[in-house]
């Protein structure tokens, strides 16, 4: 299949390579030419604009930082929408994490141009992107989902159609509530154990067998014990994702006290210089704030 890919960063690069390895022809556009380096010896064509990518591809995947970037790539000058003029059947699949309302807005504007849009954010981080074990949460039209599914299968271990346009981003927001609050809970538990003179490693081991078991306790917990704060998933990105969550809650008149408290802790991480570390550096923040460094 002719597949466009825009956004070849930490996540996007390995995802695009999986598609190429599965025999698809890639059409790429990157803001920074250096991002194209890993693709120079494979079946991939670099184009001068997103519009040119849209001309050559049947399906275009975007994986960028934030809502305005997606809007720019899809609807801006030289964007995908422009390149798809007079062509039918193009599907744009946005795998970035953005606000549900922005996804719905972009979806509606693209639909008016005859372009199908799926929001398909992922969970699993850079590790999941490299191992092709991402969890993919999809919003949009069922027929479009079926067409893109073979590509999803090359990038992730599961892809689920959650509902209409925006529903994938809602599911991702729920995911970010659980992981954000979860990381904070594990960090608090470990700091509590250590301050009480108890070995957090033993606590973790015991808890893994019980009702407090979670992947976060298992994986993130281990990295906390190893004091391995290399990202993974950077704290500033989790801060951004929780902002999306909290803005939705504000709009909906919805109370999310746990997520709200956690979002403030991520603010503190970014403000105190931990933004570029993994979100498990939450542990460092708690240690600093409770004088247990």
């Amino acid at each position: 299949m002719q597949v466009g890919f825009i956004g070849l960063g930490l996540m996007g690069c390995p995802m695009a390579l999986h598609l190429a390895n599965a025999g698809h022809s890639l059409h790429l556009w990157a803001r920074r030419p250096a991002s194209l380096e890993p693709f120079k010896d494979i079946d991939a064509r670099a184009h001068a604009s997103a519009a040119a990518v849209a001309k050559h591809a049947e399906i275009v995947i975007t994986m960028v930082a934030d809502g305005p970037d997606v809007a720019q790539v899809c609807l801006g000058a030289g964007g995908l929408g422009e390149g798809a003029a007079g062509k039918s059947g193009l599907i744009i699949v946005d795998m970035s994490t953005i606000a549900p309302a922005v996804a719905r807005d972009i979806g509606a504007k693209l639909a008016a141009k005859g372009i199908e849009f799926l929001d398909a954010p992922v969970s699993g981080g850079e590790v999941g992107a490299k191992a092709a074990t991402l969890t993919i949460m999809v919003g949009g039209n069922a027929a479009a989902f079926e067409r893109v599914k073979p590509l999803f299968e090359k990038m992730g271990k599961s892809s689920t159609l959650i509902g209409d346009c925006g529903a994938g981003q809602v599911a991702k927001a729920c995911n970010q509530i659980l992981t954000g609050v979860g990381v904070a809970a594990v960090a608090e538990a470990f700091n509590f154990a250590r301050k009480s003179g108890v070995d957090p490693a033993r606590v973790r081991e015991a808890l893994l067998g019980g009702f407090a078991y979670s992947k976060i306790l298992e994986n993130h917990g281990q990295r906390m014990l190893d004091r391995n704060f290399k990202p993974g998933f950077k704290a500033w990105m989790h801060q951004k994702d929780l902002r999306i969550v909290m803005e939705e809650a504000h709009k909906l008149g919805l109370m999310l006290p746990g997520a709200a408290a956690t979002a403030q802790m991520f603010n503190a991480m970014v403000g105190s210089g931990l933004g570029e570390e993994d979100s498990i550096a939450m542990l460092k923040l708690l240690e600093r704030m409770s004088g247990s460094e």
Partner: protein
Amino acid sequence: MKLGFIGVGAMGLPLAGHLLNAGHALAVWSRRPEAAAPLLAAGARICASPVEVARHAEIVFTMVTAGEDVAAVVFGEEGLIHGGRTAGGQFSTLVDMSTIAPAMTRKIATRLKEQSISMLDAPVSGGVAAAINGTLAIMVGGPAETLAQVRPLFDLLGKTIVHVGENGAGQVAKACNQMVMVAAIQACAEAMHLAAASTVDPLKVRLALLGGAAGSRVLEVFGVRMVNRDFRAGVEARLHHKDFGILLDEAHRLGSPLPIAALVGQQLNALMGHGWGRDDTASLLRVVELESRPT
């Protein structure tokens, strides 16, 4: 002086009245012309658009809801900007008394400066009663020389006028004001609720507290509304909810944790979700009561 006023709602109307009563010429524009009717009777010129206000007024006051509203009034198709001196109008100074995001204020001030128009951000605290009595607290951001020119007018509207700093500084002060005040309303609601849940008379608790270290304006004003279960707006809760959106957004941008404000923001979200946005913020008591009602 030739003045203009845009946004004659519950707050704006009495403020415009004070300026008019002090003998200034006042040009007024309102989205709903009937809102300006009392000012027409008092001798104001009612205009068909913001730009018409700008043609007749040197200093224009705005008192509207959101940052987008201010931007639209100033830069819109029929906006004030088209009635500046270079365009043959009178407009040379904008005094924005709305509560909007500091970043938005700074952006508007910068764009106005390019057209040689000076701006003050001058949000207020004190509510409708203080607006009527001319006893508002006014928090000002912007150039000192502009404030010097506008200060005699502020004296007609408020009793405390503080020059906080550059453009945007007034809005930062207002955000701080909202944080402290609404957190206090929440604390007050929780105290009144604890008293009632303990079958102790909240009225007496409030009276006792007013004399001690927990005494405050909020306990005085919002406490009495809670005791009387009078949830009609003074200040509509939806406005506080809007302000919390602004200040939590700033906290995100600055990487600055506001743990209490964040939780109070959630209580306000719940208040909105129950449809009490047009009632008084004393309704935070009703949110606390809901949370403790057995289901």
